[in-house]
């Protein structure tokens, strides 16, 4: 899974959110390490909807502007759980290697 998809799905675990909220959450969750541009965000959202991992939620009109919310679907939740598990395995393996050569982990 690409990092963009990973961070979007992780941020949607907290509940449905609109585009800007997703970029904010992503920045917060990654301590500012992962910055998501609006263009990349919407391309990823489009792809994730096509794959059936997320769907469009409610739409709010604020100051005449449409705010489209996105929410995580069951398939998306499964996909992110699996991805987290995989990434954890990779980290575990790397830590093991580090110990092997006498590094601190």
């Amino acid at each position, binding site marked *: 899974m690409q990092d963009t998809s990973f961070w979007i799905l992780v941020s949607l675990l907290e509940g449905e959110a*609109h*585009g*800007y909220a997703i*970029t904010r959450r992503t920045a917060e969750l990654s301590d500012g390490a992962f910055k998501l541009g*609006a*263009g990349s965000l*919407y*391309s990823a959202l489009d792809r994730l909807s096509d794959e059936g991992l997320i769907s469009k939620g409610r739409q709010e009109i604020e100051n005449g*502007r449409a705010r*489209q919310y996105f929410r995580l679907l069951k398939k998306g939740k499964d996909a992110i759980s699996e991805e987290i598990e995989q990434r954890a395995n990779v980290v575990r393996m790397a830590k093991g290697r580090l110990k092997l050569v006498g590094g601190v982990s």
Partner: protein
Amino acid sequence: MNPGAVQVLERRYRALIRLYPQRFRDKHEEGLVTTLLDGAKADQRCPAVGEAFDLMTMASLEHFREDTQASGLRAVKQGVQMGAAMLLPILFIFKLHNFYKLNQVFLPAATWSDKWNYTSYEILQSIPAMLAALLGSLALLGFASAKVSGRFAAGLCAVASALTLLPIVTASRAGGAMWLHRGGGAALMTTLLCLAWSLYQEPPLLRKRVGLLGLLLLGCYSWMGLTSLFGLAAYFAPVAVIGACGALGPRACVAMSVPLINRALSVAWMDPWALLMTVLVSAFVFHMSLLRTRSLLRTM
């Protein structure tokens, strides 16, 4: 935030978003604009460089994704349009090169008299051809990058093709049988393109069949490498053009008529039809391999 500044910024964001494919814009334009404006600084009037770059890159990737998702003939058509868009600027450069070479006839005295006849009206003929190639290139590049609508690009290409009719005037003034060869060929091709345009409106199945047949003949014609439109290959050429229009759509074919009509003046060291076919076939193969890879990845 100053409302005037917001309006300016919004307009600029929307201009960038126009680079995306229509399908994507229908679904996400409003959300994207809102997100961009939410993230904008107070009194920001221009998209940040990073934002603009992100939008432009993602827009072209979306076009690409759309192409690979398209199925069958549509993918081929898009591939061919991409091919044609890539080809025209190349032809333009070669035309420019020819034009430049013609200027050099003033330098070597030995061949001067020989080439004088050639320049007197051939140089006049290459000016509209160059203009046509330039206009056609701009229209197709604009269309490919979603800057202009398909209808506008087709219109501009039609103007470009019509421009190549100008040699009728210049060549008939020069006298001789040349005007029949060049001007007649140009008139014939333009008439055929109009016919092909109406054929394009026909039901898809007929279009596909005629189109495939035409492409086959186009291939035969191009590799035969014959020079005259009124030679043996004349029988292939009309069918090929109509067929190609059916298969590829009017945009690609009107653009293709630019190198076709100016065949005799095009790339000197390489047959333009062969070059055209190479690009078209490469675009086709490229697209088919993309579609294949995609379906393979899906099944994995």
